[in-house]
């Protein structure tokens, strides 16, 4: 199958998956206890039964559930995620203002986790019983065991009071003046701690996985062939072995994207990062259904896109997948 046909098929699967996510989320949220009309009224300072009925009809909440679903799906198809009950603004605008920082955080964490994890795994694999191997084992245990909000709070304490070298809150400095490049520097400076916090748990996994994968590959016949050719050890390890050892990392990195996004929502709360996480949290408390549905839809969309990109990079990295071989 050519790459175009392949991408087309994968996109079609992605659309079907997203529709499924929309329908499931819609029912899940309507099954949750609580009446959004009362929440809206509560935010306005209380209401009579008549006002509640008006709110219900204004938001279409008085219609049968299936009709509400049909209306919702129809709107989403036109790019309309509805109005937030709380902000009284289009949900799409609320998300658009926050999706950028979330994507930035997720990608930064993924890059840190993969680069550092693979590097540690490779060096640990060179000496499977050496000190770095032991460190990778300890790190992966700690990394698995420590929840991100705990790690985040510990880092906040460390960098806020003990060694205050990194900002622990927000995405930009409050009183910032400078050019565009300086602004990017400022954002990256603020990004350091949240990205590292989010990366730790995945870094632990990738280092452990790449250590195992690398040990496996270093024993392979083709690595012996590479040595028999007279290649330097650096070339043997980083060209012949690593190209094969990263294949399982790509697979796992794709699967982990969903976890990374849900982890990002927590990390955003700890570091007050202006992403979708805070909005998601508040929307749950406010029973702001349209906003919550919108956020869940966007999270699913990011996962679908990430998985598609993973598959494409896997095809790029492994010729056996590309040409449909054994």
């Amino acid at each position: 199958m050519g790459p175009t046909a392949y991408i087309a098929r994968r996109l079609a699967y992605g659309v079907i998956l997203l529709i499924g996510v929309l329908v499931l989320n819609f029912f899940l949220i309507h099954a949750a206890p609580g009446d959004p009309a009362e929440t809206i009224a509560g935010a306005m300072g209380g209401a009579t039964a008549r006002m509640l009925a008006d709110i219900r009809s204004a938001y279409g909440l008085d219609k049968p559930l299936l009709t509400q679903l049909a209306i919702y799906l129809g709107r989403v198809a036109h790019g309309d995620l509805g109005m937030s009950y709380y902000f009284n603004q289009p949900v799409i605008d609320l998300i658009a203002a926050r999706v950028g920082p979330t994507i930035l955080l997720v990608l930064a964490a993924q890059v840190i986790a993969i680069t550092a994890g693979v590097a540690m795994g490779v060096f640990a694999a060179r000496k499977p019983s050496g000190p770095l191997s032991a460190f990778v084992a300890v790190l992966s245990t700690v990394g698995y065991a420590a929840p991100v909000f705990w790690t985040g709070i510990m880092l906040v304490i460390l960098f806020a009071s003990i060694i205050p070298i990194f900002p622990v809150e927000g995405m930009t400095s409050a009183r910032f003046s400078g050019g565009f490049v300086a602004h990017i520097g400022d954002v990256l400076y603020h990004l350091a701690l949240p990205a590292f916090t989010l990366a730790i748990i995945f870094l632990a996994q990738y280092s452990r996985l790449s250590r195992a994968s690398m040990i496996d590959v270093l024993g392979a016949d083709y690595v012996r062939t590479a040595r028999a050719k007279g290649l330097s050890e650096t070339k043997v390890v980083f060209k012949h072995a690593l190209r094969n050892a990263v294949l399982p990392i790509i697979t796992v990195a794709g699967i982990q994207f969903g976890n990374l996004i849900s982890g990002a929502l927590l990390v955003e709360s700890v570091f007050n990062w202006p992403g979708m996480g805070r909005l998601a949290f508040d929307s749950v408390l406010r029973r702001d259904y349209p906003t919550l549905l919108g956020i869940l839809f966007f999270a699913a969309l990011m996962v679908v896109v990430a998985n598609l990109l993973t598959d494409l990079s896997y095809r790029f990295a492994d010729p056996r997948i590309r040409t449909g071989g054994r």
Partner: protein
Amino acid sequence: MNVGTPEPLLSIRGLKVEFSTRHGKVTALDGIDLDLMPGETLGVVGESGCGKSITALATMGLIPDPPGRIAGGHVLFDGEDITRADPRRLRSLRGADISMIFQEPMTSLNPVFTAGDQIAEAIMLHQSAGKAEADRMAVELLRTVGIPEPERRSRSYPHELSGGMRQRVMIAMAISCRPRILIADEPTTALDVTVQAQIFDLMRDIQRQFSVAIMLITHDMGAIAEMADRVAVMYAGRIVEKGTADEILDHPLHPYTRGLIGCIPVLGKEAGEEGRMPPLAEIPGIVPPLHLLGRGCAFADRCPLAFDRCRAESPALEGGAHKVACFAAEMEAA
């Protein structure tokens, strides 16, 4: 060089290799002596675990260390002791002067690089050729080893090639820098019989064309009969018999060698009474684990001729051109 008595190209003297295992230290090679003359084919034969592959890896300087270690002896290539060469010198020999093809063509090529790239890599490394030049030479080499449509095949990945073709690619890679020694470790074991014959033909052609000395490592006496000029028979880390291929095949002295030759199926042998072929011969027992070797001859427990002395002391490799390490053979000769 004196033409009358040529110097050996490769000379292994008293080579001893040890491995640390969970049973403690075991001696995988115990005092191996081998000579490889320019342009000849030396067959090294024996069952799995007898040390043939370790001999090959030691010659390439590729004994995995740890757990392995060269505990004694020398490997002289053209007079230079490669057991004492530094890693840089070893790398410049490997793939250039001494190259190797392996048993498993299915797994010996890197699955993520094309056949052409893997051949060109060796050329660029040892012959300081540019990428385009090396690619062109790789295609020529694929043509030399008899791969049809070499231009297209050089862009194929290993999984797109058959086992026989992959072994041809391995051979092309091994001869890419005109080595003086080609070590072939069970080059045909994983291939089917017709392909085996083709690969042997190819190796003979290569030997004529490039006047390369071949060390053919195999457990197959048939392959030895087809290819080898001289033969060394190995058992449990030692050489038990050594001589010209004709002598060894026609007049084997060691009971183990006789056993191996007895294992060659003979075409056209009389069918038995029930119309069946006679059962294939086998040597009873298995090669003893190296950590359980006693003082005596390692083959004594499987040997039909063994007597008390065989279990008490280990026979030395003795004789003229045709050497054997066996007390029973000595008595027979006396």
